[in-house]
């Protein structure tokens, strides 16, 4: 998508030598942080982070011109921690201001650029989108229950998956959680739905299909979401997601440069 710069730039590590790198558009990367021009907006990202993905989707849908800097979260550069003491992505920076926490970033972007607002302007509808995010949060929990499982017993993870999907099915009363078009809640939950197929790729998890025939609305919803331009623009193949999670959670050596 033309509004992004550096979306697949090489991850900036603390001690990497400067080099020109081929990316979606040319952004110089290296151990030095490129200066941020006044008036320009920058997103600190991690290529495979589902939380940063929420902000990438927001920026994608709003078609905002944004420069993306990918960060090595295992070895956080000083300039990163100075801006966000919590050391997490996503983080937005512009004109000396720094905002972080994915949902706060997203709402902030809507407040700065109300012409392309994704959150409704009506206070009640707005509140309902935020309540939906809360009510769908079990979906995120499921994903990490599988990824971070330590004892090899996935019974509880599978149980929580069924409950979360039942809940998601029940809450889907229109084409999207944002009704007729993708909204705040859809963007919040999509990164996890995009990664869900990973759960079926590992035979040890014992899950053959996700979401499966018990959840027809969610199944159709996922197919519908994959057709949305803002989703497609930044979607990654499941194998790439899977390889990243393997490198991060099993090998404990996240490969941020997969797929570049």
């Amino acid at each position: 998508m033309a509004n992004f710069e550096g979306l697949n730039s090489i991850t900036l590590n603390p001690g990497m030598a400067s080099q020109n790198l081929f990316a979606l558009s040319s952004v110089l990367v290296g151990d030095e942080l490129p200066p941020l021009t006044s008036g320009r907006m920058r997103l600190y990202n991690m290529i495979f982070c589902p939380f940063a993905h929420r902000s990438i989707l927001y920026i994608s849908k709003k078609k905002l011109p944004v420069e993306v800097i990918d960060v090595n979260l295992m070895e956080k550069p000083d300039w990163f921690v100075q801006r966000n003491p919590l050391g997490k992505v996503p983080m937005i920076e512009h004109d000396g201001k720094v905002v972080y926490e994915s949902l706060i970033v997203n709402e902030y972007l809507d407040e700065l650029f109300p012409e392309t607002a994704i959150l409704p302007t009506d206070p009640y509808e707005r509140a309902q989108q935020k309540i939906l995010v809360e009510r769908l949060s079990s979906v995120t929990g499921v994903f990490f229950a599988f990824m971070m499982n330590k004892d090899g017993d996935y019974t509880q993870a599978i149980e929580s998956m069924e409950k979360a999907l039942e809940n998601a099915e029940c809450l889907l009363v229109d084409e999207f959680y944002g009704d007729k078009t993708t909204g705040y809640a859809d963007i919040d939950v999509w990164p996890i739905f995009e990664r869900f197929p990973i759960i079926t790729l590992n035979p040890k998890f014992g899950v053959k299909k996700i979401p499966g025939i018990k959840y027809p609305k969610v199944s159709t919803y996922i197919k519908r979401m994959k057709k949305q331009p803002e989703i497609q623009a930044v979607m990654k193949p499941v194998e790439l997601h899977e390889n990243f999670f393997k490198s991060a959670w099993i090998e404990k050596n996240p490969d941020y440069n997969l797929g570049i």
Partner: protein
Amino acid sequence: MANFHGLNSITLNPDDELPPLASGKIRLYNMRFCPYAERAVLYFAKKNVSVEVINVNLVDKPKWYLERNPLGKVPTIEHDGKIIYESAVVAEYLDDIFPDSSVLPKDPYLRAHQKILVERLSAISGAFYGLLRATADNQEAGIANLKKALDTAESLLTDNFYGGKSSGYADMLVWPHLERVEVLPLIRPDLHLDKLLGTDYPKLTAYIARMKELPEVKVAIRPAEHHVQFFDSYKTGKPDYNIGITAA
């Protein structure tokens, strides 16, 4: 405070009928000792918005309550057929429908900063509950956890309030858990936390004193003894939601 009706009304049980809600009126479903519901009470107090309060039994949830909030949690607000819940969502919604008394700043960056503060202060609640239920095995870790959360709170306090010169969104949302942290030494005397807030946290100590002077905090705060009694009653499995309600 004149804008509240029923703030200390008797807690309603499943058998109790829910009084009808007049059109145009706002109702808050509350539990008198819930820190999250207290956020809403503080917000209503600070905004001086008229509200009718229904105190709900959360251990034995009335059907009429679950029909409104399927998650069965407080706070929930209701008006003209609309239901809103989740304390932070309730607070922001109130600012949206009553913008003249907005607690959140209008500036997008300052607004975001208040919400980030709430996130950065959020470890206090987990640390509180961890120590509330601490056993001999985990109490040392629990105390370390709380100290870490308080260290963060101390360092983030760079003005009179987290909201700046006057109390703001972050103060309203963080106060209820600080109120309970203060009482923790009385609830769990066995943990020997008496010196917890004392000299180690000069800014927080001054902040807490300053907060207690605010009219909105005076409305919402519960006396230490009541917190102690409530937590004691909670341990029996049948919490006494009506502690402190004097006969009419």
